[in-house]
């Protein structure tokens, strides 16, 4: 527990408990209604909160479902180290679905050039992973405040046999009565954090005293500047002319893979400092740090239709 955050945010604390109760209810409902759920765990802050809620939903018993990480092969090493440590502590079952395997198997084709990203390829790996293990429900950490297509999505989001989302044929979703009925081959994506905001997530992390991967806090690293964003240098990232690497003190607001996740300049090295920065910011996390959402007006809707997270 962090006394500073609690004492200055008593009201936030109460509404966090309401959100927490709603999320736990959703998680239990999935476990009760679906045959074989899985929790998609990226090592990012949202999936860390999601995992915490899932643990609370069933304790003192263990998690009644495994975790799955869609590994692009372009992850921050700090995040992978964090993932492995947390999974070991919880004694949870972790399945790693690898984008590299999808490429090697000819299921996905690597993009080339300086702007290559494995972001879109993840969808293939994700759908293959879900099918291979027979998962009929997948928990994701997506929030409605992140992006305008997500603002439209149900908490229980129905997917057809190909894993696709049809935004115009969403099931009505009333009260706290969730309809998890599906046919053979169909599945649901479930978003227990739908009603959380970025600030709620950070305040909850502070209140619960959760550990995070170190890249969420200010640190010095080698970066280069592209389209007004700072990207980490890495072996697999090609630079365009003029993109000279330099060292800067930065932190990450979101954790995607290294090729499409930008850093922000920040001196916030503690949870309190990060919460204070988030509360004061005037730019959304995806707008500030995600190249994958800048592709077009409906970039997220299009990817979601294909079966993206």
């Amino acid at each position, binding site marked *: 527990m962090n006394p500073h955050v609690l004492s200055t945010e008593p*009201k*936030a604390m*109460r*509404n966090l*408990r*309401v*959100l*927490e*109760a*709603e999320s*736990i*209810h959703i998680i*239990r*409902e999935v*476990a*009760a209604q679906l045959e074989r759920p899985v929790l998609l765990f990226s090592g990012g802050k949202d999936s860390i909160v999601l995992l915490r809620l899932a643990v*609370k*939903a*069933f*304790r*003192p*018993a263990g998690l009644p479902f495994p975790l799955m990480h869609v590994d692009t092969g372009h992850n921050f090493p700090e995040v992978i180290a964090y993932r492995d440590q947390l999974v070991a502590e919880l004694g949870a079952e972790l399945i790693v679905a690898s984008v590299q395997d999808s490429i090697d198997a000819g299921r996905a084709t690597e993009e080339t050039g300086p702007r290559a990203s494995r972001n879109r390829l993840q969808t293939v790996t994700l759908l293959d992973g879900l099918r291979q293990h027979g998962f009929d429900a997948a928990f994701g950490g997506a929030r*409605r*405040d992140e992006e*305008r*297509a997500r*603002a*439209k999505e149900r908490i229980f989001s129905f997917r057809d046999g190909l894993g696709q989302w049809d*935004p*115009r044929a*969403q*099931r*009505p*979703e*009333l*009260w*706290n*009565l969730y*309809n998890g*009925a*599906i*046919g053979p081959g169909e599945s649901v994506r479930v978003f227990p954090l*739908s*009603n959380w*905001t970025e*600030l709620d997530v950070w305040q909850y992390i502070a209140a619960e005293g959760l550990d995070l991967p170190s890249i969420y806090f200010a640190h010095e690293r080698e970066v280069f500047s592209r389209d007004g964003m700072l990207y980490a240098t890495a072996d697999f990232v090609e630079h365009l002319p003029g993109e000279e690497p330099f060292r800067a003190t930065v932190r990450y607001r979101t954790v995607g893979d290294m090729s499409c996740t930008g850093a922000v300049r920040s001196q916030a090295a503690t949870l309190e400092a990060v919460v204070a920065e988030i509360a004061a*910011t*005037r*730019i*959304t996390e995806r*707008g*500030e740090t995600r190249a994958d959402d800048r592709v077009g*007006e*409906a970039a997220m*809707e299009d990817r979601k239709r294909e079966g993206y997270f």
Partner: protein
Amino acid sequence: MATLDVSAPTVELLRIATAGSVDDGKSTLLGRLLHDSKAIMADQLDHVRAVSQRRGSGAEMDLSLITDGLRAEREQGITIDVAYRYFATPRRRFILADTPGHVRYTRNMVTGASTADVAVLLVDARAGVVEQTRRHATISALLGIPHVVVAINKMDLVDWDRVAFDRVMRDFAIVAERLELRDVHYIPVSALEGDNVVSSSAAAPWYTGPPLLEHLEEIDVSAARARNGGARFPVQWVVRTHTYRGYAGQVAGGELRVGDPVIVLPSGDRSTISAIDGPEGETDVALPPASVTVRLADDLDVSRGDLICHPSDAPTVTRDIEATMCWMAEEQLQVGRPYLLRHGTRETRAVIEDVYDRLDVETLVHDPKAATLQLNEIGRVHVRTSAALTPDAYTANRTMGAFILVDLQTRDTVAAGMISDPAPPPRSANVVWQPGGLTRTKRWSSLHTTGACLWLTGLPASGKSTLSAALEARLVSDGRMAYVLDGDNLRHGLNGDLGFGPADRAENVRRTAHVARMLADAGVIVVVSLVSPTRVDRDLARQVLETDGLSFIEVWLDTPLDECERRDPKGLYARARKGEIPNFTGIGQAYEPPVAAEVVVRPHDGVDGAVEQVLRELSR
């Protein structure tokens, strides 16, 4: 120990649903609300500005682009589905469900309104109260939204004329009275200019109330939340380890305290709360909407779907409910067809026995001639369920008074129901029993027969089929009309759509009981051979026969499990042991022995001995 109180009177989370038609300027109002309360981030605003210019809106920013997030919505310039927006002020945190106003998307408005504390309805000051306004008000009333704000927009276009404002207020008050909307608040605004949205306006000195945002910050929602009613805890999941057994769920009414005496419904078992485990550890008290795990002092058989509550204010246990229902599927409601019903954490099959009437949401007139409901229509219905429910009236508890129906084929959510009467008389009002010309006495004496029901219950392979065949043969050879209703045979036809879960077993017994009643009434001695594992279902069968003045003889084949398993003529026990047959009575599902069977048959009685025993009972 701490008190887990997530619904303290000062709780700062408020859920709002907004509705209006395109011309009311709703999107502009929301854009204004979000913009002026600084809930829109700089990059979102840049995006809106860029798209507005590309679409030729000129220098004017099209604030509706903020909430209309789907490609189709942006292309058509209308709201199709609910969009959720989040903003906060130092006093409150808001979840705003922006719902579509068009009649075609009524079901989406219902989705957004189902959990709202406050409805904000937009009215154009020039157009006044129109049909859409009445529909939005009706849905708000039906869904029990406790507070309504009528934002009378475009006041700048009527020169802030108080007469225009008063006219809307007067017209809406008539609607509100008919709908019994108790808390309605009227605010004159100009979304375009920003008057009375976030900050007060000097343009209307005659309006002394707060601007919209301040009003939303001040509404007292604590009284309306379901905390004064009876304690309601629908069991969602059983948490079990070698040393721990607790019942997980979300408190849906009242309060639960450690030490409270409780009753579990529908079984009626009683116990005491020995501990409550919350997300932050053990706690003394849990209030709605806390998600907790409750431990009981006694070792009871409690499972998902059961309700834990206080014996002093427990709800009715019933299979009949009367409800107002909003139909949400393209395919119309079909009376008599089975649907899946979700209520609390209970899932059961249900049949709509009758449509009483349909509400014309624009004129607020009930049409009693309606026989069905089409997409987006609202009406009153009688629903009969296969398993028992523990419902409250929706006006008393928005969680335990609500249900949804799911289509068994498409698996879509097809209806939202709000329970108006948790225990109406079981037979539908306008299906009147058609009396025949012949009385039972006359029929039986002319045919020299006496109908009755022999109900053979027991584990699989306990000897029911053998005994029923022997009884039938003996009775017929004595010149009496006898007929066997065999459980397995019934499942080939009449009950072919049923599975072996508890709900389907209950329905199996119910149908069999009604067929037995008709045959017995016709003068047949019906020999029912059915595992019928639960006491409650057998009692129901008895009730069906006995309330119709027919004799019901329960015959229990008390053959021990190991003996049944040794016989196993169909190899079913062997398969159940291998896990191939879930819900197999005796292995995966318990058999509840009768407590007052008229006849008890044991293996050493032999078939002939058993036949004599039953005939003796029949001749009494």
